[in-house]
């Protein structure tokens, strides 16, 4: 021990003036390792704590009303009628629209960045995509409210606050997720695949569509599922453009309320059972998100097994 330290002290720059006792080597090192372990466990405890508290706060409603809570189509919280089917339908209609618009665009963006873009163009597009991810959702919502909603009202009819408005805004918001992850999985396809295809006389596009896309499909699917999870959980942008009416939408021009919107709109004044019902809404949302995350985990694990 003594030798070790003195030899360390002779190395230029290797000298440590804090390292003067046994304490710093034995107990100190141990303490620091424990401290880092604690830091690493914060994330684990947070997830558990969040799960426990959300479930404790919302479970009484689900226990009391059961399927009527999830499949009930009427939401009159002040009269003790809690059915969140309209919100589930709202969330899924908005998210489905967002995927229909966002997935083709995101895939195109990913193919463009991975295969087509000259590096000078990629240097502009890639930071732009990152910036799209960085813009706060409330700014998207604000923009949607000011520009998109009046456009829809004027040219397509209805009040403007609609499934369509929510879908368009969400499509833009999930683009970065889909583009970045899909691009990474396209780039991860072994170069031999592409070279082999080109050597057989296939065009670049044939190679992309028949070789690269299928080979990268699990990563692409993972990106879509993650984008979907992001869209389901998105709150502010959606409540600012969808109108928040608690009715199952009949067309894409109808206003809707999503699960997230339901929570934010009423949390400010809800008390008692009403508040519990909002937490129960949170449980439903939480379960959807966890399922989607598990799905992603499953897909990427299978991908690494195959790869």
């Amino acid at each position, binding site marked *: 021990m003594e030798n070790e330290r003195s*030899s360390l002290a002779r*190395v230029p720059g*290797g000298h*440590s003036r804090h*390292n003067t006792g046994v304490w710093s080597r034995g107990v*100190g*090192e141990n303490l620091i*390792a424990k*401290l*880092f372990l*604690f*830091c*690493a466990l*914060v*994330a*684990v405890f*947070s*997830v558990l*704590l*969040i799960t426990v508290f*959300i479930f404790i*706060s919302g479970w009484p409603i689900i226990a009391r009303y059961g399927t009527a809570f999830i499949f009930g189509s009427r939401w009159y919280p002040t009269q003790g009628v809690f059915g969140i089917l309209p919100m589930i339908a709202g969330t899924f209609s908005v998210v489905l629209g967002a995927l229909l618009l966002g997935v083709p*665009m995101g895939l195109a*963006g990913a193919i*463009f960045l991975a295969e*087509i873009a000259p590096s000078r163009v990629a240097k*502009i*597009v890639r930071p732009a995509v990152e*910036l*799209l991810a*960085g*813009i*706060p*959702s*409330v*700014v*998207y919502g*604000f*923009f949607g*409210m000011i*520009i998109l909603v009046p456009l829809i009202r004027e040219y397509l009819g209805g009040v403007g606050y609609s499934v369509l408005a929510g879908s368009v805004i969400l499509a833009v918001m999930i683009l970065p997720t889909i583009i970045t992850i899909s691009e990474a999985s396209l780039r991860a396809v072994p170069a031999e695949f592409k070279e082999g295809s080109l050597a057989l006389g296939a*065009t670049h*596009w*044939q190679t992309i*569509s028949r070789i690269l896309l299928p080979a990268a499909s699990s990563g692409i699917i993972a990106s879509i599922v993650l984008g979907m999870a992001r869209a*389901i*959980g*998105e*709150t*502010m942008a959606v409540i600012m453009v969808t109108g928040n009416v608690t009715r199952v939408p009949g067309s894409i021009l109808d206003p809707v309320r999503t699960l*997230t919107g339901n*929570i*934010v709109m009423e*949390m400010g004044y809800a008390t008692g059972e009403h508040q519990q019902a909002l*937490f129960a809404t949170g449980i439903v*949302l*939480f379960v959807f*998100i966890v399922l989607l*995350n598990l799905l992603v*985990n499953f897909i990427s694990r299978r991908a690494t097994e195959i790869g």
Partner: protein
Amino acid sequence: MLTPKQQEAFWKAVLWLVAGVTVAILVVIIIHVISRGIGHINWAFLSQNPRSMGRLGGIFSVIVGTLYVTGLALLIATPVGIGAAIFLTEYVRQGRMVNCIRFFTEVLAGIPSIIFGLFGFVFFVIYLGMGWSVLSGGLTLSLMILPTIVRTSEEAIKAVPVSYREGSYALGASRWQTVRRVVIPPALPGIMVGVILGIGRAIGETAAVLLTAGSSLHMPYSLTDPARTLSVHLYILATEGISMERAYATATVLVIAILVINFAANLLMRRLAVRISGF
């Protein structure tokens, strides 16, 4: 039927178009917000407190509230996040435990902000009795940005060549000495990128802050005072139709802050790339 060559030309044109549209969307949003808002931003707007619900006056107390909540979140999440990253990369062998911690970190990253808001509300605001306050908001946000800091720091630490550590251990340095003197310094710019991205996420967050820090327009003087952040202010101004010009001005401040933050992160990342390739 199109020949393969024609198909290729067609699809490539489509891809260029989509990429162009993606960039155009970003440019349109930023230019629209800034061009409408920049005219309303002046010293008085930035330095005066809001009056009559934000219809008059400026956004000074809101800026202070944003800085408090974001600052507190960083103060907690930065050391914990870096500590977790060091633990995951330097202190344990890769295996089941690391995978488990990493899985939970991923799950934490995937939890929607509104769920964080609900949790912060029931746990910090009510259960721990902190009320709507800077403290509740900052703690909630710190959990939200933790995964970002952990992941980026982990990447940065992993990028430090193994030979550095071997050299340090060979000289008889302990693990902590190696981490502190050899591993952390070259990883620092990468870690900073994570922290900066965390700042961006914290500033832009609305739902979680609304439920935990409240929306009071009063100047927060202590950690237990409620506060309103820029994004909450923008939400309330816009949806309650209080003042569109002030909403634009607030959105502009928010967008400029995000632009500066992203620019800083990019600059750091480029420096880092130069430094690594320089070795």
